[in-house]
């Protein structure tokens, strides 16, 4: 087993709001191996983006109040801001959801893509730009040399996302974090971008964390997946296993609520009852228990720890840890 490239240990990030302290990330732990593709899946507000931002120490105005982020032997929560800046954009890159607003409208794309090279490698503009144009070509932008002189608004949505990806990869980082990279795009373009991410992962060996609320995206792209709910990891494991036999009621309910080609024709979709909890005022014990069809008495008392369930999966559920299979009407 290879040494983990990135190891998040019991991370806690909070936000102070008028209504109270929001525990956006409430004890999240996971590992990322070199070259691996990991998906982080969950509903809006479950803390997946904040987790990613915390890894990059971009979580302001939130505060990291506990845990460690081990990367190449360093705890990123403890390094200085200067050291962190050195890592950001060079060893770890992040791309965001909306490529239209994520690129600076007043600078040319080539210049923006080349910027990390000028900043981190100290290259002069010409050398950096040449490399940037090459990268733009490799992510599938035709006539890259001319296009590099264009501004972001002159690109289509899909092309802009390619530019973002190129920008993240210019320094061949060890880790690429993609926060909902396809959510703002048309379905057909989504597939292209996912292809690109897969291709990039193979060709550059960049470990990729893909954050999304779309299970289909994860299925197509990630070897492993972690499922988050209310700021906590509720399940983790190889994607195929988790999808085939989920070991947490939340994952199980999620999978039943999406349309599937192999479902019975007249089976209705089963949405999850209830509402996601307020992150200021979490339920006692397991955060999911108010909406859980399998809950037992212990669920409302004790917060379940993430433990192995089955051969390859981890699950934070008293019920499945006790050996119960998840089946239902």
């Amino acid at each position: 087993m290879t040494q983990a490239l990135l190891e998040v240990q019991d991370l806690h990030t909070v936000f102070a709001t008028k209504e109270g302290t929001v525990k956006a990330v409430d004890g999240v732990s996971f590992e990322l191996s070199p070259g691996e593709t990991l998906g982080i899946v969950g509903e809006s507000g479950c803390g997946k983006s904040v987790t990613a931002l915390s890894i990059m120490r971009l979580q302001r105005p939130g505060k990291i109040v506990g845990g460690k982020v081990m990367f190449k032997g360093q705890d990123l929560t403890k390094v200085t801001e200067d050291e962190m800046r050195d890592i950001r954009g060079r060893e770890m890159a992040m791309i965001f959801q909306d490529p239209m607003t994520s690129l600076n409208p007043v600078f040319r794309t080539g210049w923006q893509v080349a910027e990390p090279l000028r900043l981190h490698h100290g290259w002069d503009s010409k050398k950096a730009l040449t490399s940037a144009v090459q990268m733009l070509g490799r992510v599938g932008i035709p006539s890259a040399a001319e296009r590099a002189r264009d501004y972001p608004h002159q690109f289509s949505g899909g092309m802009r996302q390619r530019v973002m990806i190129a920008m993240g990869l210019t320094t061949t980082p060890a880790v690429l974090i993609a926060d909902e990279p396809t959510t703002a795009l048309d379905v057909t373009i989504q597939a292209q971008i996912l292809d690109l991410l897969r291709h990039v992962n193979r060709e550059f060996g960049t470990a990729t964390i893909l954050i999304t609320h779309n299970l289909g995206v994860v299925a197509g792209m990630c070897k492993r997946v972690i499922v988050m709910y209310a700021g906590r990891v509720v399940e983790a494991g190889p994607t195929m296993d988790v999808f085939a036999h989920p070991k947490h009621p939340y994952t199980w309910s999620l999978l039943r609520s999406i349309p599937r080609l192999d479902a019975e024709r007249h089976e209705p979709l089963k949405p999850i009852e209830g509402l996601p909890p307020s992150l200021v005022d979490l339920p006692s014990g397991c955060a999911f228990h108010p909406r859980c069809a399998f809950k037992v008495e212990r669920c409302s008392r004790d917060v379940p720890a993430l433990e192995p369930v089955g051969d390859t999966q981890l699950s934070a559920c008293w019920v499945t840890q006790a050996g119960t299979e998840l089946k239902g009407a």
Partner: protein
Amino acid sequence: MIGQSRVAELELPGAAVEGASTRPAQSYWNESWERLRANRIGMAAGVLIVVLALIAIAAPLFSLAVTHFQPQTIDLGATFAKPGSAHLLGTDELGRDTVTRLIYGGRVTLGVAFLTVAVSLTVGAGVGMLAGYYGGWLDDILMRLVDTVLAIPAIFLFILMSILFRPTPISLALIIASVGWGNVARLVRGEVLSVKQRDFILATRSIGARDVRMMVRHLLPNVLPVLIVAASLGVGQIILIEAALDFLGLGIQPPTASWGNMLTNAESYFFHSFWLVIFPGVTIFITVLASNIFGNAIRDAFDPRLK
């Protein structure tokens, strides 16, 4: 925005996601009023304006009961008196009492300001609503008209008009309003355009409501916050303009007192009676300041996001 309808008792599901409690949603106006009341400085400013207005209205009472002077009473034996017991803030070159003149001047200045705002708002809102609601060529023409009116440097125009028309408080108000409505029209048009897109307008239209009814009953309440803010901030700006005109000698003419024309000959007072320069100016400053603070407070109350 829900407008004035009584949706106070609706429980909005999904509010739980953000961690907010499921309080019933208050009407927009109530919420805004609450926010305004919480802003103590803003409220103080508002109270100050009301007080000043009341004093101005009750000017004759004041001069009778408090200062015991008339604004036009000349007393050549007491010219340039220092502030003291006889004349609280001194006298000017004709021995007229400063305090009394300030109070009566307030009457004129505030009167012109409020009248101007009233006219500007009415005309501006009307034009803005028509332009925004109907769009098309009417919008183009009206907005070109606004552009034109706003392009002329105001003071030049006012000077020009004061040659043509005798500057009485009313004519002065109309002169200033003849330019002022432009900005209001733009503001209102902007609001109308953004409200027009909202679904409830389409819904109301689809049940066949007539244009005028649409404008008055549905657009107007939504445009009102913008108007109120514009009014409050406008009072301050107009006071400054009016004072400048009076100062130049092209507005309210002496012997009628106004804060501006009390400063017309200030340069000659400098050496010996500099307080005559200070007091009217400070009065203008405080009044405009209060109007601005109050206007900002109202704006923050209606739309706290803008902070």
